[in-house]
C-alpha cells in the first residue's frame, strides 16, 4: 500500500483516522495472540510467583465408559462437552503460597461472613509433618477455604482466579486423551506421573517432581486431590444432559462438594481421570466442636486445590456474586 498516494486521494483527516484504525486493529490482534500464553503471577506481599498455562477451548468426552476398571456409576453416562478457554496453574497451590494469605496480618481473621477473611488457626498442625516449606501442596482445607484464597487473591491482584469446574478439571486432566489415565490405560506407568499409595510413602510430595500431562500440568493425578467448584451429585450426568458447553452444577448446599484426581493415599483406580471423590462427614470426625470448623478438615490430609483463570473475565459485579454464592452457602 502506498500511503503517500493514498493520502493524495483522501483528505488528511480521513487518512489519519484510517492509520489509527489499522494500528488499533493490529494492537487488538497482537493482544489476543500474545496474551493467551503461559505467564507467572506474582503474589502481592511476597516474592512468590505461580505459573499459569493456557488451556485452549475445545471439546472432550467426560466420564468413564462402563467397562473401565474401578468405575463408579456416577461417572456416566459419558457425554461430549465444549469447554471455553482458561488458564490453569501448572502446580497445585503450595503451603508457601497459601501462607501469604493465611498470615496476612492486614486481613481480618475468621469472620462469620463472606467478607475476605483469613481462616481460623489450626488447633493442631494439619500438614501432619509431611512438609510445609519449599513447595509442598497446601492441604486439609474445606472447599470454602480454597475459594476464600481466590477471593483474597482477586482483591490483591484484580484478576479473577477460581477453582476449576468439574468439567474444566477433567478436560484439562485428559489433555486430549480418552484413556483411563491421561497417558493411557497401563496402571504400571502411573508412578511416572503421580504420587499415589504405591510410591508416596504415605505422604504428599513437593509439587512438580514427576512428569506432566500433555498440557504441561503436573500432579493432576495423585499427590493431593483437588477441590472443584461443583456441588457433588451422583446424577451429575443426568442433571447436565441438556447442556453442551461449560457444564456446572452451582451449589445449593454446603455439602457435599467433590475432589478430583485422587491422592497420595489412594489406590490406582482412584486416580482415573473420571474418578469423583465425594466429600464425607468423616473428613472432620476428629473436630471435637460443633459446629465443626468451616475452614479445616481434621481427617482429610489429602484435600488440596489448584487455580484456574477464565480467559473471559466476568464483570466486577458477577465476580462479587460468584464469591457470595460460594462463600455464604
Amino acid at each position: 500500500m502506498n500511503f503517500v498516494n493514498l493520502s493524495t486521494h483522501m483528505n488528511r483527516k480521513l487518512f489519519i483516522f484510517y492509520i489509527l484504525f489499522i494500528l488499533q486493529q493490529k494492537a487488538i490482534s497482537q493482544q489476543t495472540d500474545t496474551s493467551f500464553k503461559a505467564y507467572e503471577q506474582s503474589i502481592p506481599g511476597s516474592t512468590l510467583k505461580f505459573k499459569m498455562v493456557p488451556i485452549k477451548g475445545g471439546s472432550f468426552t467426560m466420564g468413564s465408559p462402563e467397562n473401565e476398571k474401578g468405575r463408579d456409576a456416577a461417572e456416566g453416562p459419558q457425554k461430549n462437552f465444549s469447554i471455553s478457554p482458561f488458564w490453569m496453574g501448572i502446580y497445585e497451590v503450595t503451603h508457601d503460597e497459601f501462607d501469604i494469605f493465611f498470615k496476612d496480618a492486614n486481613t481480618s481473621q475468621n469472620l462469620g461472613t463472606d467478607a475476605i477473611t483469613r481462616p481460623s488457626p489450626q488447633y493442631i498442625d494439619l500438614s501432619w509433618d509431611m512438609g510445609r516449606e519449599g513447595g509442598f501442596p497446601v492441604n486439609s482445607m474445606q472447599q470454602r477455604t480454597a475459594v476464600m484464597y481466590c477471593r483474597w487473591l482477586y482483591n490483591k491482584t484484580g484478576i479473577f482466579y477460581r477453582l476449576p469446574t468439574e468439567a474444566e478439571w477433567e478436560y484439562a486432566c485428559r489433555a486430549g486423551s480418552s484413556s483411563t489415565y491421561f497417558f493411557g490405560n497401563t496402571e504400571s506407568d502411573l508412578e511416572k506421573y503421580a504420587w499415589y499409595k504405591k510410591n508416596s510413602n504415605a505422604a504428599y510430595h513437593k509439587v512438580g517432581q514427576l512428569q506432566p500431562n500433555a498440557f504441561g500440568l503436573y500432579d493432576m493425578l495423585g499427590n493431593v486431590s483437588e477441590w472443584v467448584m461443583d456441588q457433588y451429585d451422583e446424577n451429575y450426568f443426568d442433571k447436565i444432559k441438556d447442556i453442551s458447553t461449560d457444564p456446572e452444577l452451582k451449589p445449593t448446599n454446603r455439602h457435599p462438594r467433590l475432589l478430583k484426581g485422587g491422592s497420595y493415599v489412594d489406590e490406582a483406580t482412584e486416580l482415573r481421570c473420571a474418578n469423583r471423590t465425594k466429600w464425607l462427614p468423616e473428613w472432620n470426625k476428629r473436630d471435637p466442636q460443633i459446629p465443626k470448623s468451616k475452614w479445616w478438615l481434621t481427617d482429610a490430609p489429602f484435600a488440596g486445590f489448584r487455580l484456574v483463570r477464565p480467559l473471559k473475565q466476568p464483570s466486577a459485579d458477577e465476580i462479587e456474586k460468584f464469591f457470595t454464592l460460594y462463600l455464604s452457602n
Partner: protein
Amino acid sequence: MNTENKNSRRDFVKTSAVITGGIMATPLLSGANFFSGSEDTIKVALIGCGGRGTGAATQALSTKQNVKLVAMADAFRDRIDNSFKEMTGDNNIKSRIDVPQERKYVGFDAYKKAMAHADVVILTTPPGFRPIHFEEAVKQGKQIFMEKPVATDPAGIKRVLDAAEIAKQKKLNVVVGLQRHYQNSYRELYAKKELIGDITSAQAWWNNDGVWVNMRKPEQTEMEYQMRNWYYFVWLCGDHIVEQHIHNMDVINWFKGGHPVKAQGMGGRQVRKGKEYGEIFDHHYVEYQYADGSILNSQCRHIPGTMSKVDELLTGTKGKIFCGAANIKDHSGKVLFQFDKKGENDPYQTEHDELFAAIAKGEYKFNNAEYGAHSTMTAIMGRMATYSGQVLEWDKLMNSGLNIMPKEFAWDAMPPTLPDADGFYAVAVPGKTKYI
C-alpha cells in the same frame, strides 16, 4: 430411667423369661414402653453449651442406645440457643432432642436444675467450674461424661478426687474427655509398650498458633467479660498448659502408670501481650520428674509462625514409642510395630459409644475421674512451676489447698483478677510470683 437399679430389673426380666419361656417377658417389656416413650430411655442433660458441649451432646445422641437430651444449662442464654439450633438442625439426632423452654436453664446455678432431669450429665463448661459441677452430679447420683481439664487449682483437684471416691462407691460411670484413651492407635501402642522396655524419659509437645479471642464489649461487667473470654483467665481456663497440653502429659502419665512427683520450668509471655489475652503465658517448658527418676520434658507454645507440633514420644531401655506416627522403633531405627492408620477411629464418638453401652447394660466400667484429676494436676504443677520459677513438689502442692476461684458467682461479683486502668492484667513474674 433409674440407672442405679437398672441391673436388677434387667436381671429380673432375663430370669423371668428363662423360667416362663418368654411369656412373662412380653407384658413386662410392653409395660415398660407405656410410660413416656420408654423406660429404656437414657436421659441426658448438657451442662455447658459451647462448641465442645454441643459436640459431646451430639456424640451422646449418636450412640446406639435410646438416648434423649432433656435439659440444657449455660451461664449464657445465647449459648443454649445456638447449641439447640445446631443440634435440632442435624437430621441424624433431632428426633432425640426434647428440651422445651422450661428445661433450658440460664445462669451460674443452672447446672443443678438441669441435672435433676437426667440420668447422664455432660459437663463441658470452662474447666474452673468442673469441680463444683462434678461434685453436684455425684451427689445427685448421675452417670457422668466430663471434659478435661477437671479443675484449675489444687483445691479443685481435691474436690474432684473426693467426689470420685463417692462416685466409685455409688458405682457411677465417669468418662473424662482425654480422648487418646479411647483412640485405637494409642490403645494399640499402650498394649505393646513392653516392646520398649522400661520407660526412662519422655517428651510432650503442644506447639501451635493459639485459639480464639472474644473481645470486651462496653456493656459487659468484668465477670461477664472474663466468662466470655475465658481462655485467657487462669481461674477459668488454667492457662493453655492446662487446657490443651494436658492431653500430651496425660499420655505420658498413662504409659508410665503414675504422675510426676516434682517439676521445674520456665515460661513467659513473649508475643501474645495484648490486653485481650488476659493473664496467661504464651509458652511453657517444664521438666517433670517421676518417682522412679525418669524425666518428662514438656513444651507448649501459642506463638504463630513457630514450629508447630502436637505429639508425644516415650523413650525406653529398648526403643521408642512415637505416638503421632503411631509406631514403635528400636534404638537402631528398626520399626517394631506400625499401627495401620486406616484402623483409626473417632475417639470422641467412642467415648460416648462405650459409656452409653455400659449404662444401658447396667454395668459399672469407667472411673476416669482419678487419672483425669492427676493429669490435670500434672499440668497445674507445670504452670505453677513456670509462673514461680521454683521447684514444686506434688504432695506439698496437693496439700496447699490453694484456691484461685472467685468467692461469689454473680454477674456483678468481682473475679479474682482485675484489670488496671488501661485494661491490662497482672501477669506472673518468675522469681517474684509465689504460689505456696
